[in-house]
């Protein structure tokens, strides 16, 4: 495509001069992308902090209904997947194709485990009607779509919603807590889902032998992304599941 006086391997795009220049630019770009991811989650952490401050009692009471065991298992799963990812990158660096493929597969398996546990966790919340905002306790509605209210103006929860009905949590702030919970873990879960897609793509490319010690940037960047997913969970876990 271009005529340079020095070697220009096919994996170097035409507008870069050398593989080193391409790698430096793309890695820098990846870090800039990670920076924006962090600020994206910053908004969610801010929402968490604000409402934890406004409604400390509800936050403590509501977190009791999250399963710290499931959260803990997921933490271990994610950290392990981070390890296998790091090993995959190392395998790419050293040109160990077999290890690269195995470690990437392991990472994908752990990522799927994470989502499976998440699925059970979410279904438990749905079962107890621990849902965000207007859906907390699945309040009854009249024909016109307005919420039915009891004598003192409170929403009437569906019969099977044992925890909301027990009234141990203030309905409004509990709705906010579960809103925060679902959007934080949901956004994180979405990142896991995207990560699985990226890992699968990288795995396919690795099997075709696209990567070698001179060119493994895509593996490394997917790795950086995956560690970021782990990083965010490291904070989500104690904030949502543990703090009393």
């Amino acid at each position, binding site marked *: 495509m271009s005529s340079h006086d020095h070697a220009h391997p096919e994996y170097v795009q035409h507008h870069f001069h050398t593989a080193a220049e391409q790698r430096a*630019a793309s890695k820098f770009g990846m870090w*800039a992308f990670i*920076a924006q991811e962090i600020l994206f989650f910053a*908004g969610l952490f801010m*929402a968490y902090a*604000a409402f934890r401050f406004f409604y400390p009692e509800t936050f403590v009471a509501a977190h009791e209904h999250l399963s710290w065991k499931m959260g803990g298992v997921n933490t271990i799963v994610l950290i392990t997947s981070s390890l296998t990812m790091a090993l995959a990158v190392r395998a790419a660096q050293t040109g160990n194709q077999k290890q690269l493929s195995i470690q990437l597969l392991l990472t994908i398996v752990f990522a799927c485990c994470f989502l499976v546990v998440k699925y059970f966790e979410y279904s438990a919340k749905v079962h107890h009607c621990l849902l*965000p*905002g207007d859906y907390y306790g699945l309040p009854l509605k009249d024909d016109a779509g307005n919420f039915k209210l009891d004598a003192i103006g409170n929403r009437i929860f569906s019969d099977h919603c044992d925890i909301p009905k027990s009234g141990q949590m203030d309905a409004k702030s509990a709705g*906010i807590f579960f809103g925060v919970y679902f959007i934080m873990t949901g956004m994180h879960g979405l990142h896991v889902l995207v990560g699985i897609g990226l890992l699968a793509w990288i795995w396919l490319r690795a099997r075709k032998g696209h990567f070698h010690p001179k060119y493994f940037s895509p593996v490394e960047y997917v790795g950086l992304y995956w560690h970021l997913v782990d990083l965010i969970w490291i904070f989500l876990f104690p904030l949502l599941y543990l703090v009393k």
Partner: protein
Amino acid sequence: MSGSYGNEGEQSYLSRKGFLTWALTLDHKRIGLMYLGAVLFFFLIGGIMALLVRTELLTAEGDLFSGDNYNKIYTLHGAIMVFVFIIPSVPAALGNFLLPLMLGAKDVAFPRLNLASWYIYLLGSAFLIFSVLAGSIDTGWTFYTPYSIGPSDNGNAIIAATLGVFILGFSSILTGVNFISTIHKMRAPGMKWMDMPLMIWALYATSVIQVLATPVLAITLLLLVFERLLGFGIFNPALGGDPVLYQHFFWFYSHPAVYIMILPGFGIVSELLTVHSRKRIFGYKAIAFSSVAIAVIGFLVWGHHMFVSGQSELSSTIFSGITFAVAIPTAIKVFGWVATLYKGSIRFTTPMLYGLYFIFTFTIGGLTGLPLATLASDVHLHDTYYVVAHFHYVMMGGLVIAFIGGLHHWWPKMTGRMYNIKLAAFASVLVFIGFNLTFFSQFFLGSQGMPRRYHAYDRVSESLQGTYKFWHQMSTSGSYILAIGLFITLGYLLASLRKGGTRSPHNPWGGVSMEWLTATPPIEHNFEGQPVCTHGPYEFPEIDKSAQDKH
């Protein structure tokens, strides 16, 4: 800079024809041109909305539109101008075209990402347009809760618009990531940080803000959508949420966004004033670093939009104090520009005229920020036309004037054509007069207490109503003059593209930064071979080097 990079081997980047050569192009220049077309289109639409707003306010009664329709029109004006015109105008349109050229690079670091940003921008714009069809939003461009999440006839429109802005945000983020990487890693051999044109410094500071602030807007708007769809309650006071928290979230992006809008303007003006006065910029380092300083301090001052909002007194005090700090780097820039003219050889070309207008209008915009940063006077001026006038002096008088100046400066480079110079000078005078008449009147309106976003003012007591009417009429007449000036500008720019339009000389202004080294219009891969940077961007031949030695 060494070597000759004439139009020998490769052809102009415009020469390949066909829809797909544009739709699938990875060439930053073509992507820049496509952005340019889009932002000018949206500028036109937003401008028409502005004229409708001004026309309604000619009379005190709300006789032209119903209150609902007026609210939709001004919201559309704001949202279009901010999200799809100003923010992408210089970075994505001019910046895309110029950044690699000015750095002596073949392209931006990630050309495919660049094309993706363009399509994401189109998708976001499509959502905005869809929101208009779905009934149009009437929330103001700020989407303040709880109004934006309350019962509304246009719920779908609000969701479409917020999703649109959410998507546009990613376009902006990806452009920012691309630019930062390009500036860091792809400068021509020999080009050190202090050899970069100031336009690049400005784009660099802009990109940093785009990357670090926009994601917060994204999550905010996502929460807003969930708020509407699921009743999350985070921003809804009726459900225990906090509307002031929404304002923090919103302004954490939207105040730095003001600097996304104005910083590139600073960059352009630095180029215009030096090239057309044939002199080095005064205080290169000060101007370069003040761009970065403004970008950073810009993150610390968002709460000055909220002095009367119910935020804590401590917050207001902190925000007011830091806000004043922005004035210092800004003043350094203005003084530097004025000093650049000293002992130059000034050509009154159209770009230079816009550069000089900028000094005037932006200085007014900056200075009128002071009473707004001051706590006591802001209480009186907040949410009045004084604020409207202030930010139009900064946005329109700052960025748009610089953008039009930059367009005139680089138009020959981009298209290879020269516009009608006399008509251009005439139109620029109309723009200048019209602009000042429109917006200076609004300072009086505002300090007299006229609130913004009012569709009618017939309920105002007699004594003030007369005053308001007078200044509104002045403002509206100014806006028509401004519109005529802008239409003439659009006319002669388009006319220059017709077959047989005047061809521009290779380097009409005698610029010495790298974009003038390549052919006009540039060849497909920007440069023949690799250019090497051998001197700073403002080393004009007219500079009296002998005097320097004595210096």
